[in-house]
């Protein structure tokens, strides 16, 4: 019987290519594969099954996120590069909060992009919650402040603040992000209690750069990985977890308000290695 097992056993090269094809960082993929047969230690699990467990262990997290863990009038700041899915995720989070009996407010602090706040305004109607926005071109930090202030004044449980997309290699834009945080600190010293970066699953190795630079600018407390309903596998998450150890909180699986699920390591690795 062990003869048959060898015949359908994937080769180390095949498995490494599967990891590369999934956007796992090349050096990390090589390390994991090099250690694979040792990890198997002559047991009779297939290489693929051992690899799956190794990868699941790398992403395993202690406690899943719940809105109820947040203090009253909590502030959740949503950041990331252009087009990653921040505005859509902001709306999905407001929807999820409502489902959990939490009363949310949204803040449309993207005052730069064409129809940036219009997009969130329409989402607010679809989700059934209020949104605080500012005039096009107004100060993003001021709108963020107003949103948190409104959250407190209207006695809402949570404010989710959407920000404009920005390239992490643009110092003035990263400075603006710091300014937004300082502005929130002025209203509530502990705000934002959560700062989540939205990463697009279709992006390759640059995702690590994004997470690293954003984290150096304003400390991240969570990662949302979007567009995992496409053919990309977001293998970049392994090196991000390894280097930054920021929890991966949610996964975006579509364009509707319901399409956001808690990140789960086993489901993620099963999707990656098939």
């Amino acid at each position: 019987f062990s003869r048959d097992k060898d015949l359908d056993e994937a080769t180390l090269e095949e498995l490494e290519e599967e990891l590369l094809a999934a956007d796992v960082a090349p050096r990390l993929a090589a390390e994991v594969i090099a250690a694979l047969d040792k990890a198997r230690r002559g047991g009779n699990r297939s290489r693929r099954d051992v690899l799956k467990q190794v990868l699941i262990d790398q992403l395993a997290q202690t406690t899943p996120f719940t809105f109820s863990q947040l203090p009253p009038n909590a502030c959740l700041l949503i950041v990331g590069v252009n087009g990653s899915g921040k505005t859509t995720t902001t709306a999905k989070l407001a929807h999820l909060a409502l489902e959990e009996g939490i009363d949310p407010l949204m803040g449309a602090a993207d005052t730069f992009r064409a129809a940036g706040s219009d997009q969130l305004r329409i989402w607010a109607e679809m989700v059934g919650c209020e949104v605080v926005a500012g005039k096009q071109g107004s100060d993003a930090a001021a709108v963020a402040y107003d949103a948190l202030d409104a959250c407190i004044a209207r006695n809402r449980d949570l404010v989710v603040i959407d920000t404009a997309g920005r390239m992490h290699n643009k110092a003035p834009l990263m400075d603006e992000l710091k300014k937004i945080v300082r502005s929130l600190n002025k209203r509530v010293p502990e705000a934002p209690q959560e700062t989540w970066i939205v990463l697009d699953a279709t992006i390759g190795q640059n995702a690590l750069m994004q997470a690293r630079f954003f984290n150096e600018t304003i400390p991240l407390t969570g990662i949302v990985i979007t567009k995992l309903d496409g053919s990309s596998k977001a293998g970049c998450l392994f090196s991000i977890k390894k280097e930054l150890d920021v929890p991966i909180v949610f996964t975006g699986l579509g364009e509707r308000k319901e399409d956001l699920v808690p990140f789960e390591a086993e489901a993620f690795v099963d999707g990656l290695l098939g």
Partner: protein
Amino acid sequence: HLSNSLQKTFKNLRGYGKLSEKNVTDALREIRLALLEADVHFQVVKDFIRQVKEKALGQEVLASVSPGQQFTKCVQDELTELLGRDHKAFDLSANPTMIMMLGLHGAGKTTTTGKLAAKFSRAGRKVLLVACDIRRPAAVEQLNVLAGQVGVDVVNPNPGESVPELGMRARDRAMTQGYNLVIFDTGGRFQVDDELVRELEELRDMVNPQNTVLVVDAAMGQESVNVAQTFHERVNLTGLILTKLDGDARGGAALSIQSVVGVPIHLVGVGEKTEDLEDFHPDRLASRILG
């Protein structure tokens, strides 16, 4: 930095004779890693390394440059040639000329449509934009704001109208009202979403665009090949626009798509404003990919 690590690999080689097989194999290991880390598709990297090995082994080591520099130049020239060989501009011969924009969610289609509108109006064309994203909240508004900034007209969807119907109506309007360039902005979609890809096929059949442009984020990962290949098979791409090159992504997706699908890169997006659209320079992208 790749050229520095290659310098180390070659530092014991003196300037006589051919590059040895060992020198080249060691250097190729560095190159392979650099290309994979730049998001070049792993199969494209395999083929490229094999190609470069043959070329490099045949070369005489020149006395005037270090072997590391010479090898880097050999690789860079190969990359530049791969990236630039299918260069073609837009087909602007028809009146009205049609450009259909497509791509994954958030790649930059709507913003790039605004940039193309600016570029072509500056060149004296009468441009008409068509807001074919009937799904994303405020997508139509977004295109209209850009159109207003640039000073061009937009055809907006009627309630209940399908994308192909909108396309047909826009084409008729362009022909009867003297527009000579029409750009169709479509909603983001995955190449594996059959229903949405069929919508693109139907729009293409209605409108018969001379130009079908895939808009690709420069930071795209390994799926660049599957995405481009599938879209090419289904709607026949005539060109590519690479966006967000003002970020720090290396841009290997462009090489992957070029090698496998062979669609020319028309232009590159280098920022969020309507003027942030530049010509594509294969040599610049080659050295960026190499890092």
